[in-house]
C-alpha cells in the first residue's frame, strides 16, 4: 500500500472514532461540539505516559480513555440543564477551554507542541477502530441502547416510565469522551507530534459532520461518514481549486435529499435482508 493511501486510511480510522464519540452522545439527544477537547486530553495524557513514563501504548490509551471519561461525566452533569443549541454552545466552550489550556501548559510543550512518541502503524489504529466500532454495534442491540433512544425520543416520558435519564445522559457523555480520547491517543502516536491547534473547533465540527453525513441513527454511519469525509476531497482533486467548493455543494445535496444521512435503519435492514423476516 502506498504511503498516500495508508495516510488516508489512518485518517479514516481516527475520524471514525471521533464520529462515534459524537454519535453515542447524540443518541441521547445531546449535541456535543467539544469532543476535540476530550480528544486533546487523550492525546496529551497518552503521550505523557508513553514518553515520560515509558508506558506501553495500550496501557496509556486505557488510562487516557478513563481520565477523559471522568472529565466527560463531570461535563455531563451541567449539560443536563442545557438543551439543543445552548448545550452545543456550552460544549464548544469546553473544547476551546481545553485547547487553550494546552496552549499555555508549558510542561507539555505549550504552543510549541509535544513530540517524542513512537510511531504506530495503520494496523494498530484499525485494531482499535474496529474493536470500538464492533462494541458500539453490539451496544446498539442492547437494552441500554433502547433506553438511550427512549431518552432521545421523549426525555420526560422516559423518566416517567421509569428510566434513569440522568444516568443515561451522563453515561453517554462519559462513553463519548472515552472514545474521543482513544482517537486522540492514536492520532498523537500516528503523527508523533501534537500541538493545541490539532484540537480546535474544526476538529469537533469534522466529528459532527461525519456523523450527520454518514447517518446519525446507526453506529456504522460514523464509518461511512468518516470515509466519505476523508476520501471525497481527495477524489475531487482533479478539479483543483474548486474541490472544497464542490465538496461543500455535495454535502448540501446529500443533506437535502437524505436528512438522516447516508445510512439509516431501513436501509441497513434492506441490505441485510432483515426486513424479509419481519
Amino acid at each position, binding site marked *: 500500500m502506498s504511503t498516500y493511501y495508508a495516510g488516508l486510511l489512518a485518517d479514516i480510522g481516527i475520524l471514525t472514532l471521533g464520529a462515534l464519540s459524537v454519535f453515542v452522545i447524540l443518541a441521547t439527544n445531546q449535541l456535543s461540539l467539544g469532543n476535540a477537547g476530550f480528544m486533546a486530553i487523550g492525546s496529551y495524557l497518552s503521550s505523557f505516559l508513553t514518553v515520560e513514563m515509558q508506558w506501553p501504548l495500550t496501557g496509556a490509551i486505557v488510562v487516557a480513555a478513563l481520565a477523559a471519561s471522568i472529565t466527560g461525566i463531570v461535563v455531563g452533569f451541567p449539560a443536563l440543564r442545557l438543551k439543543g443549541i445552548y448545550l452545543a454552545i456550552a460544549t464548544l466552550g469546553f473544547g476551546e477551554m481545553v485547547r487553550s489550556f494546552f496552549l499555555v501548559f508549558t510542561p507539555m510543550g505549550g504552543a510549541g507542541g509535544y513530540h517524542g512518541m513512537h510511531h504506530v502503524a495503520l494496523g494498530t489504529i484499525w485494531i482499535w477502530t474496529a474493536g470500538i466500532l464492533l462494541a458500539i454495534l*453490539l451496544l446498539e442491540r*442492547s*437494552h441500554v441502547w*433502547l433506553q438511550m433512544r*427512549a431518552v432521545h425520543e*421523549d426525555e420526560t416520558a422516559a*423518566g416517567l416510565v*421509569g*428510566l434513569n435519564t440522568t444516568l443515561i445522559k451522563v453515561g453517554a457523555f462519559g462513553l463519548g469522551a472515552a472514545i474521543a480520547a482513544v482517537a486522540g491517543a492514536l492520532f498523537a502516536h500516528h503523527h508523533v507530534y501534537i500541538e493545541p491547534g490539532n484540537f480546535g473547533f474544526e476538529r469537533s465540527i469534522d466529528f459532527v459532520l461525519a456523523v450527520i453525513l454518514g447517518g446519525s441513527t446507526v453506529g456504522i454511519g460514523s464509518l461511512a461518514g468518516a470515509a466519505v469525509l476523508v476520501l471525497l476531497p481527495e477524489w475531487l482533486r482533479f478539479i483543483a481549486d474548486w474541490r472544497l467548493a464542490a465538496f461543500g455543494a455535495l454535502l448540501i445535496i446529500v443533506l437535502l435529499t437524505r436528512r438522516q444521512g447516508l445510512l439509516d435503519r431501513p436501509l441497513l435492514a434492506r441490505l441485510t435482508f432483515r426486513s424479509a423476516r*419481519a
Partner: protein
Amino acid sequence: MSAPSPDTLLRLDGVSRRFGGVRALSDISMTVERGRIVGVIGPNGAGKTTLFNLITGAYRADAGAIVFDDHDVTAWPAHRIIRAGLARTFQNIRLFAGMTVWEHLLVTQRPGGHVLRGLVPLGWSNPAVTARAEHVLKFFGLEAYRNVLARTLPYGIQRKVDMARALASGPKLLLLDEPVAGMNHDEAEDLRKLLLRLNEEGLSILLIEHDMAFVMNLCHELYVLDFGVRIAAGDPAAIRRDPVVLDAYLGSEAC
C-alpha cells in the same frame, strides 16, 4: 387517615401541593388496598393529574407523605418510584415516536442480574425480557403491530401500546390517566374487560377518569376531588347518592 395495614399498597397522608398561589391539592389522604381498582374523579382542574404526578414523583409534595409498598417514596426520584413497582399511562399518550411497538415493550423492563447485562445484545442477555414482551404483546393483541413505529400507529392502538409499555415493567400498581378518553362505547367496554382480567391476575389499579359509566362499572372504590380537596370517598353506589358529589360534579341528571 387510615391505619397502616399489610394490605395497603399505596397510602397518601395529608398530601398538599401548590403552584405559586394556587392550591392544586390540599391535604389529600387516600389508600389503595392490594388487589383493588380505585378511581379518582372530579371536574376539570380538580387536581387529578397533579395527584398522579405527585404519586409518580414527577412533582414533589409540599406537605404530607406518600407510602408505596411499605416504602416512604415521598422524596424519591421518579425512576426509583417506578422501579419499586408503579407504572403509569399518559392522558396525552407519550410514546417514543421513532421506536417500534416491540421496543416499547422491552425498554421499560429491567433486565435482572448484573448491571453489565444491559450492555450486551438483548438476545444474549436475558430471555426473560423478550419472553415478557412477547406475553404483553399477545395480551394486548398487538402482534400485527410488532415492528411498526409508534408515530404511524392509529390512535386506539397508541393507547394500547401506552398501557402495554406500562404493564411490561411488571408493576404492582397501574396508574391510568383517563384511559377511555377518545374511545367509543365498544372500545371502552373492551378496555373495561381487559382491566378486570388484569385485576383478576392480582394487579391493583388506580385510575383517573371523566367517563362516569366506565368508573362506576369498574372501580371498587372512588375518591372525589373538587378544587384540590377530597370531598367524598366510598364505593360507587354511595358516591352516586352523595349529595355533595352530586352538587359538585355529577349534576342532577346523573341520578
